C-alpha cells in the first residue's frame, strides 16, 4: 500500500530538523503515511494534509493542531499498545501503528459527537445535578459516563518498559536549553562547575530554532560553545519533572528503546530554571476548530518540519511572535488574508467551521474566508519548578504574565520566565546566572565536603581544590565561595496587552472541553474561589495540567467574580511538571532477597519455597505431616538460618538482658541457655528467643527471624540513648552462621557421629545448655540444646561458608537413622503440638505479656525493664484476653486460624440478641501425633480456666464446641521428651 503524497510539504527550510534523505512510512488509522527522519508523528500527518487528529472530551468536537508541541491537547494518540502519546512531540518511526483515541466508529464520523447537540444541558457539574433518582439506576448512568472516557487503551500483557534509574550530583542543573539556558550552562562550566543541561525538545535552542538567519547563526554558535565545554552533560528529549525539598531533582529521559523512560535523581547544588515561555491560546467562539493555531505552532511547522499549515490565513497578533508568524506564512506561500493587530484594538470575534476553519469574523464586522487562524496573544510563564521551590509568582499586569517573586538561595531563573529582551540580552543574562550559579554551588560543595568524615586526612592529601583527574572526566571545581556575587543584569519587561478572552465565549481547557461560559457559570453558582471553580468545572485537571489554560482560567474566573487576577489566584503547579511513566518511576525491580547457605540443597530436593520477609525458606518437601512424624519418631533437620543472632560482648551484657527481657538474667552461668521474652514500653509482646552464655563476657542472643533487625535496633537504641556508659558491643551475626535444628529421638545418635570436642551425654550436655565444638570437621560451631519442636534437639550454628557441607554430611551420616529434612510447616505443627507461641501470630499489636500466658516469665520484682509499668498494672487489674490451648470436641474439625470464638447465635450486633465475639483461634492444625485438631486461642479471661467449653464459629457460620486444655502444650506437657 502506497503512502499519501506529502502535499503540504514545503521546500527545504534553513532551520529544518528533518532529514529528507531518510524517509519511511507508518500507519495512521490503517492508512499509510510517509515521513522523514526527524518528523514528529503529527508533523508527518500534517505534511500529508491531515488536519483532524482527535475528538474532544465532552462534546467530541474535531480537534487539530494547536501548539505543535508536547502540550498539544488535540494530538494525544495511541501508538501500538502505548496510550496517550504526545504525537506532536514523539518522533515518527517506521512501521508505527498510530490511531486516534476513543472515537467510534471512526475519527471522521464519531457518533458521540451527538453530545454536541446536548451541549447546553451538559454545563459544568451537570452530573452532580442529575442521575439522582432513582438511586438504583445510578450504576447504569455511570457505565454510560465511563464510555465517554477520553483516553487510550492499556492491555494486561504489555511488556514491562523500565530502565535502570541513575543518581547524579551536578553542581548546577539547568532546566531548559534555550539561548539563556545554553549560555548559563557554558558559563557555569567555564567557572568549573559540573553541569547538567536538560532540554525537553529533541534539540537545544528553544525559540532560536524557528527564528530567522540571525537566530540560527547565534544558535549554532551556542551549540558549538556547549558541545566544546567539558563538564557539561546535555540531555535532550528529557524533562525536569520535579524539584523536591533540598534540590532533589527528578529528570526524566524519554524516547529510550521500547518506549522506556529513565529516571535520573539529581542532588543539585544550584538549580537554574530556564524553561522559556508557553504561548497562551486565545478564548473566543470557535477557537478549537481545526485550523486555529498558535503563532509558535505555525512557526514550528514551517521552520522545523517544512510543513505548510494552511492555504489562506488570518493572523491575530499582539506581539513580535505574531508578526514573525505572518512573515513566515507569506514566505511559505500561504496567502495571509488579514493581519489583525490586537495592539491597535483589532480582534477576532468568532471562527466558523466544523471539521476545518471556514471563515473568521473580525471585530470590524468583516468576515474573512480562510482555513487557518493564527493567534499570538501572549505568554504563560511555566513557573512550576519555582512553585516547587516555595515561590509564589506574582502577576504583572503590564506584561500580562506571572513573574518569579522570591527564590531560595539554591534556585535561580533565567530566560523568558525572568523577563523579555533581545536575544543578546537573554544570552547575557544566562551567562551571568550561570556564573553566579557556579559560585553558589562552589560554596555549597565546600559545606558538604566539610561534613564528611576523615576530612582532616583528606585535607592533608590536599585533593580538595585539585582539578580531578581524567578518570571521572569532570573539570576542575569552581573556586569555593571565594568570589563576590556575580552582578546579574536585569532583563527588561515588555508591555503586552492583557488578552485572555475576546468578545465571545470559547474553549479554555481543550483537554477537558471546559468553556469560558462554564467557568463563569460555576462562579455564579457560588463556586467562587479559583480552587472551587477549578474542581467544579475540572478546568486544568487534564493532561496539560494548566500549562495552556491555567492563566486564562484565572483571568476568566476573576472577570466573572469582579476581581483582579492578582486577587483571584496565582499559578501553582504540583509535580510532576510533565507526565512520567510508571516504568520510569519504578525502574528495575530492586527487592533484596536473602538465601541460606543450604538453599541449593533445598532446591535440589524439591522444597516448596516460602517467602518470609526477604528470606526464601523451605515450606516443606512434599508431606509436612510425614516430616513432623519423622521428627517425633526418628530425626529431622530444619534450616533455621534466618533466626536472628546477635553477638553480645562486654561486662554489662547482663544489665542489658535484664533491661530488655521480662525475665531474670543475672545468674545465667557459662554454658547455659535461657528463653526470654521482650516487651515494648506499652507492655506488648515484641519478640522472643533464647540467649546463651558462651564465655565470661560473651553471649549469643537469638531472635525471631522477622524481628532480627528490629531487636538489634532496639538494643542499640537503649545502649546509645539511655545507657551510653554500659560496656556492651552488639554485632549482628545472623548469617555468620548457618543454623540447623537437628530434632528427634535419634538426634543425639546422629550428632555423636559427627561432633568433636563436645560430650553429648545428657548429664554432660543437658537441656537448655550451650557448647562450642567441631561438627563434621568444622571448628567454631555453636550447639545449643533447646526444644522448640518439643523433641530432644540440638540447634547447630555453623560458620556459614561450611553450612552446606555440614548439612550434607548430616544427611549422609544419618541415613540409617532415618534422617530427613523438615520445613517451616512441619515445624509449625510440632511447635503447636508443644504449645510454643509464635510472636505476631499468637500475639498481636495489643497483646500484653500476661495475655500471652507469660506469667511464669515476667518478673515484676526486677527494678526496671522495658514495659514493666504496664505489665504491673495489667497484673493488678487482670485485664485483657488470655492465650490458651484449645481442642475442638469433634477432633476431626480444624477451625481455620482467625476463626472467632463467640457467644450467642444471632447475626449482627455484638451480644445484645446477636453474636458476641469473646476470642479467636490464633493457631490451628491437625496434629499428626494425636490425630486430632489442636489450637491456640485468645479468650476473655473469664473463659481461660481449663475445661471451659467455648463455641467456635467456622467460616460460613457453622458453630462447633471446643474446650480449653490444661496446658498450652497438647503433646508432652511435662517436657520429658526434650530432656532425655
Amino acid at each position, binding site marked *: 500500500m502506497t503512502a499519501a503524497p506529502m502535499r503540504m510539504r514545503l521546500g527545504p527550510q534553513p532551520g529544518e530538523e528533518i532529514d529528507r534523505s531518510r524517509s519511511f512510512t507508518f500507519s495512521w488509522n490503517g492508512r499509510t503515511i510517509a515521513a522523514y527522519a526527524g518528523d514528529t508523528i503529527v508533523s508527518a500527518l500534517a505534511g500529508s494534509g491531515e488536519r483532524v487528529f482527535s475528538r474532544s472530551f465532552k462534546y467530541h468536537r474535531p480537534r487539530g493542531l494547536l501548539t505543535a508541541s508536547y502540550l498539544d491537547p488535540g494530538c494525544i494518540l495511541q501508538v501500538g499498545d502505548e496510550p496517550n502519546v504526545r504525537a506532536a512531540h514523539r518522533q515518527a518511526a517506521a512501521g508505527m501503528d498510530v490511531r486516534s483515541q476513543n472515537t467510534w466508529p471512526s475519527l471522521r464520523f464519531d457518533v458521540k459527537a451527538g453530545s454536541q447537540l446536548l451541549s447546553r444541558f451538559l454545563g459544568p457539574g451537570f452530573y452532580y445535578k442529575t442521575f439522582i433518582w432513582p438511586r438504583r439506576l445510578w450504576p447504569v448512568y455511570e457505565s454510560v459516563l465511563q464510555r465517554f472516557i477520553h483516553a487510550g487503551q492499556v492491555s494486561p500483557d504489555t511488556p514491562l518498559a523500565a530502565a*535502570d534509574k*541513575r*543518581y547524579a*550530583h551536578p553542581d548546577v542543573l539547568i532546566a531548559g536549553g534555550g539561548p539563556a539556558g545554553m549560555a548559563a550552562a557554558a558559563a557555569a562550566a567555564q567557572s568549573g562547575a*559540573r553541569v547538567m543541561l536538560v532540554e525537553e525538545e529533541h534539540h537545544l535552542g528553544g525559540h532560536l530554532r524557528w527564528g530567522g538567519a540571525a537566530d540560527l547563526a547565534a544558535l549554532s554558535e551556542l551549540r558549538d560553545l556547549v558541545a566544546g565545554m567539558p563538564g557539561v552533560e546535555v540531555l535532550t528529549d528529557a524533562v525536569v519533572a520535579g524539584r523536591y525539598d533540598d534540590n532533589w531533582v527528578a529528570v526524566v529521559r524519554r524516547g529510550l528503546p521500547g518506549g522506556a523512560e529513565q529516571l535520573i535523581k539529581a*542532588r543539585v547544588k544550584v538549580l537554574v530554571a530556564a524553561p522559556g515561555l508557553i504561548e497562551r491560546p486565545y478564548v473566543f467562539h470557535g477557537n478549537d476548530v481545526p485550523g486555529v493555531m498558535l503563532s509558535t505552532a505555525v512557526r514550528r511547522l514551517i521552520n522545523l518540519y517544512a510543513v505548510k499549515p494552511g492555504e489562506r490565513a488570518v493572523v491575530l497578533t499582539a506581539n513580535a511572535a505574531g508578526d514573525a508568524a505572518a512573515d513566515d506564512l507569506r514566505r511559505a506561500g500561504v496567502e495571509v488574508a488579514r493581519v489583525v493587530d490586537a495592539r491597535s484594538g483589532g480582534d477576532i470575534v468568532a471562527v466558523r467551521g466544523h471539521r476545518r476553519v471556514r471563515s473568521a469574523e473580525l471585530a470590524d464586522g468583516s468576515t474573512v474566508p480562510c482555513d487557518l487562524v493564527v493567534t499570538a496573544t501572549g505568554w504563560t510563564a511555566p513557573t512550576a519548578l519555582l512553585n516547587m521551590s516555595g515561590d509564589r509568582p506574582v502577576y504583572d499586569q503590564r506584561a500580562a504574565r506571572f513573574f518569579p517573586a522570591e527564590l531560595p538561595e539554591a534556585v535561580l531563573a533565567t530566560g523568558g520566565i525572568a523577563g523579555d529582551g533581545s536575544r543578546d540580552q537573554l544570552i547575557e543574562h544566562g551567562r551571568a546566572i550561570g556564573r553566579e550559579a557556579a559560585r553558589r554551588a562552589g560554596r555549597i*560543595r565546600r559545606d*558538604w*565536603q566539610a561534613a564528611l*568524615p*576523615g576530612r*582532616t*586526612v*583528606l585535607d592533608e*592529601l590536599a*585533593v*580538595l581544590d*585539585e582539578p*580531578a*583527574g581524567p*578518570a*571521572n572526566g*569532570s573539570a576542575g*571545581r569552581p573556586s569555593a565561595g571565594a568570589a563576590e556575587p556575580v552582578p546579574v543584569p536585569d532583563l527588561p519587561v515588555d508591555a503586552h496587552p492583557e488578552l485572555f478572552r475576546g468578545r465571545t465565549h470559547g474553549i479554555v481547557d481543550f483537554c477537558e472541553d471546559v468553556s469560558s461560559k462554564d467557568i463563569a457559570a460555576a462562579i455564579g453558582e457560588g463556586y467562587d474561589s479559583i480552587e472551587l471553580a477549578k474542581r467544579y468545572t475540572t478546568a486544568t485537571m487534564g493532561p496539560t495540567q494548566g500549562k495552556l489554560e491555567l492563566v486564562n482560567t484565572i483571568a476568566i474566573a476573576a472577570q466573572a467574580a469582579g476581581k483582579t487576577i492578582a486577587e483571584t489566584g496565582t499559578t501553582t503547579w504540583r509535580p510532576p511538571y510533565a507526565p512520567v511513566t510508571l516504568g520510569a518511576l519504578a525502574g*528495575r525491580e*530492586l527487592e*533484596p*532477597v*536473602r*538465601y*541460606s*547457605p543450604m538453599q*541449593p540443597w533445598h532446591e535440589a530436593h524439591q522444597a516448596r519455597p516460602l517467602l518470609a520477609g*526477604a*528470606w526464601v525458606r523451605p515450606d516443606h518437601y512434599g508431606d509436612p505431616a510425614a516430616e513432623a512424624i519423622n521428627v517425633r519418631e526418628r530425626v529431622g533437620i530444619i534450616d533455621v*538460618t*534466618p533466626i536472628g543472632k546477635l553477638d553480645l*560482648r*562486654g561486662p554489662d551484657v547482663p544489665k542489658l538482658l535484664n533491661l530488655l527481657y521480662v525475665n531474670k538474667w543475672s545468674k545465667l552461668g557459662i554454658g547455659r541457655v535461657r528463653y526470654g521474652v521482650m516487651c515494648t514500653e506499652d507492655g506488648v509482646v515484641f519478640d522472643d528467643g533464647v540467649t546463651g552464655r558462651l564465655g565470661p563476657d560473651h553471649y549469643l542472643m537469638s531472635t525471631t527471624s522477622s524481628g532480627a533487625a528490629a531487636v538489634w535496633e532496639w538494643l542499640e537504641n537503649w545502649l546509645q540513648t539511655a545507657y551510653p556508659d554500659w*560496656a556492651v*558491643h552488639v*554485632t*549482628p*551475626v*545472623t*548469617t*555468620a*552462621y548457618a543454623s540447623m535444628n537437628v530434632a528427634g529421638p535419634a538426634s543425639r545418635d546422629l550428632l555423636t557421629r559427627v561432633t568433636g570436642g563436645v560430650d553429648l551425654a545428657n548429664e554432660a550436655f543437658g537441656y537448655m545448655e550451650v557448647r562450642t565444638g*567441631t561438627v*563434621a*570437621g*568444622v*571448628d567454631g560451631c555453636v550447639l545449643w540444646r533447646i526444644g522448640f519442636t518439643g523433641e530432644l534437639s540440638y540447634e547447630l550454628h555453623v*560458620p*556459614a*561458608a*561450611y*553450612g552446606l*557441607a*555440614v548439612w550434607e554430611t548430616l544427611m549422609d551420616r544419618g541415613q540409617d537413622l532415618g534422617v530427613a529434612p523438615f520445613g517451616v510447616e512441619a515445624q509449625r505443627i510440632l511447635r503447636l503440638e508443644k504449645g510454643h507461641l509464635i510472636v505476631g501470630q499468637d500475639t498481636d499489636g495489643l497483646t500484653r505479656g500476661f495475655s500471652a500466658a507469660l506469667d511464669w516469665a515476667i518478673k515484676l520484682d526486677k527494678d526496671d525493664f522495658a514495659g514493666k509499668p504496664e505489665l504491673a498494672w495489667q497484673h493488678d487489674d487482670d485485664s485483657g484476653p488470655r492465650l490458651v490451648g484449645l481442642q475442638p470436641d469433634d477432633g476431626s474439625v480444624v477451625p481455620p486460624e482467625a476463626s472467632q470464638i463467640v457467644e450467642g447465635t444471632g447475626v449482627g450486633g455484638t451480644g445484645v440478641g446477636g453474636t458476641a465475639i469473646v476470642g479467636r483461634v490464633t493457631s490451628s492444625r491437625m496434629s499428626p501425633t494425636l490425630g486430632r485438631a489442636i489450637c491456640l486461642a485468645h479468650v476473655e479471661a473469664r473463659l481461660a480456666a481449663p475445661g471451659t467449653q467455648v463455641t467456635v464459629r467456622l467460616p460460613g457460620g457453622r458453630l462447633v464446641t471446643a474446650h480449653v486444655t490444661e496446658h498450652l502444650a497438647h503433646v508432652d506437657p511435662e517436657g520429658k521428651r526434650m530432656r532425655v
Partner: protein
Amino acid sequence: MSENHVIARSPIPPAAPVRVEAGWEVSGCHSDAALTITDCTPLAKVHVRAPWNGVMAKTLGVPFGRAARDSGGLLIGAGPGEWLMLARPGAAPDLVSRLEGTAASSAPEEFVSVIDLTHGRALVRVTGGQAADLLASLCGVDLDDDMTPDGTAFRSSVAGVATDVIRDDRGGPRSYLLHCERSSGQYLFGALTGAGEPFGIGVDGFLAPGI
C-alpha cells in the same frame, strides 16, 4: 585444621569453571572487559570495636571514612569506633589474635572487641573506569573524586542493601570493594551484574591473596 578438607562456599554461586582456591570454591574464569566484577568473599574479614577517640583508635591509625593498607591487608575505618580488616583467605585467626594483642598491650583500659566476620559477610570488587557510573545506578552517594577519592570508605544503601563501599584503586583503574551481610550477597552481585550489562561488565574469578 577444618579448612583443609571441608570446602568453604561463598553465597555467590561461582561462574564456571569452578576451582578451589585457599579452601574456597571460587570461579576460575577470567575477563578482559573494561569493567569487571569479582567475588572476594574468601578474604578474611575481621571486625574491631573500640572507643572512636581512644588509644586503640590511635594505634590502628585509620579514621572512620578512610581505608589504608598495612602488612596484614586493608584496614578500613568502617564506622565511628568500628574497623574492618580485610586480609588473605585463612588469615582470620592470626589477625584476631594479633589485634587482640594490640588491644591488650596498647589499650588495656579500653573496652575493645574483635570478631571474625569472614563467614558473616559477602565481599565483591568492581573495577574499571566506569565503576562509578555502574554504582551510580544503585547508590546515592556522590562518587566524584572530590567527595570520595581513592582511600575513602563509607556505608550506604547499594541496591537497597546496607553496604560498606571502599574506594581502593590499588594504583590502577577505579575500583570499589562492596561489603554486605552474607545472605544478601547473591542478590547484590545480581543487581551489580544486571546494572553492569550496559557497561559490558565481565565476571572475573578470585585469585589468592586477592587483596
